C-alpha cells in the first residue's frame, strides 16, 4: 500500500531522543574502551600470563562492537519513525548484557585464582 511507504519527519522530540540514545551507546563504548585501557595499565600482572591483556582485549572488543552497531541502530530507528513503522529489533542490548557478563565472570575468576 502506498500509505505505508510514505515518509515524513517524526515529532522532533522522538528524533532528539533517538539521537541521545545513539550518544548514550557511544558513551558506553567509550567507557568500555577506557575500562579496557585502565585494566591493561593499572592492574598488576596476574599469575596467569596474558590474562590481563585478554581481559583488556575483551573490554575493547566489546567497545568496538557497540560503536560499530550504534550507527545502524540510530539509522534504522530514524527510518522506522519516518515510515510510521514499529521500531526494529536490535540485538545490541543482548550483546552488551552478554559481553558485560563474560567480562565480570572472567574478572571474578582472575581475582579468585590471583
Amino acid at each position: 500500500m502506498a500509505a505505508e511507504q510514505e515518509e515524513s519527519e517524526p515529532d522532533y522530540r522522538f528524533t532528539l531522543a533517538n539521537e541521545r540514545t545513539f550518544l548514550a551507546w557511544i558513551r558506553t563504548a567509550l567507557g568500555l574502551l577506557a575500562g579496557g585501557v585502565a585494566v591493561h595499565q593499572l592492574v598488576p600482572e596476574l599469575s596467569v600470563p596474558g590474562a590481563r591483556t585478554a581481559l583488556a582485549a575483551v573490554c575493547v572488543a566489546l567497545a568496538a562492537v557497540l560503536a560499530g552497531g550504534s550507527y545502524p541502530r540510530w539509522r534504522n530507528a530514524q527510518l522506522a519513525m519516518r515510515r510510521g513503522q514499529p521500531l526494529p529489533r536490535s540485538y545490541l542490548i543482548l550483546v552488551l548484557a552478554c559481553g558485560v557478563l563474560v567480562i565480570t565472570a572472567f574478572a571474578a575468576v582472575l581475582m579468585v585464582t590471583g
Partner: protein
Amino acid sequence: MTSQEGLQPERTGLAWQRTALAAAACTLLLAHGAAQEGWRAATVPTALAALGTLTMAVIGRRRAHALRRNRMPGPPGRGQTGAVAALVLLTALAALLTLPGAQP
C-alpha cells in the same frame, strides 16, 4: 508541557558535550599509557582518540547551536553520526591491535 519540550534540545546538546568529555577522558588515559611505554605502539590509538575528541567537540558544538536556533530541529546529518561511530570504532580497533604489542 511547553517547558518540557523546550528542554529537549538543551538535553541533547548536553548529551553531545558529555560524549565529547568521555572521549577526552579516554584520550587522556591512552596518552598516559603511551607516555609510560615511550610512545611506541600506543601512538596510533592515542592520535585517533584525540582526533575523535576534537571531531565530537566540533560536531556537538555545531549541533547545539543548530538546536538552539531551530524551533523544530531535524535529525543530525548522516555524516555526523556516522563519523562519530566510525571514529570510536577505529580507536577501539587500533587499541585492540596494539594491546599485545604494548606488553613489555
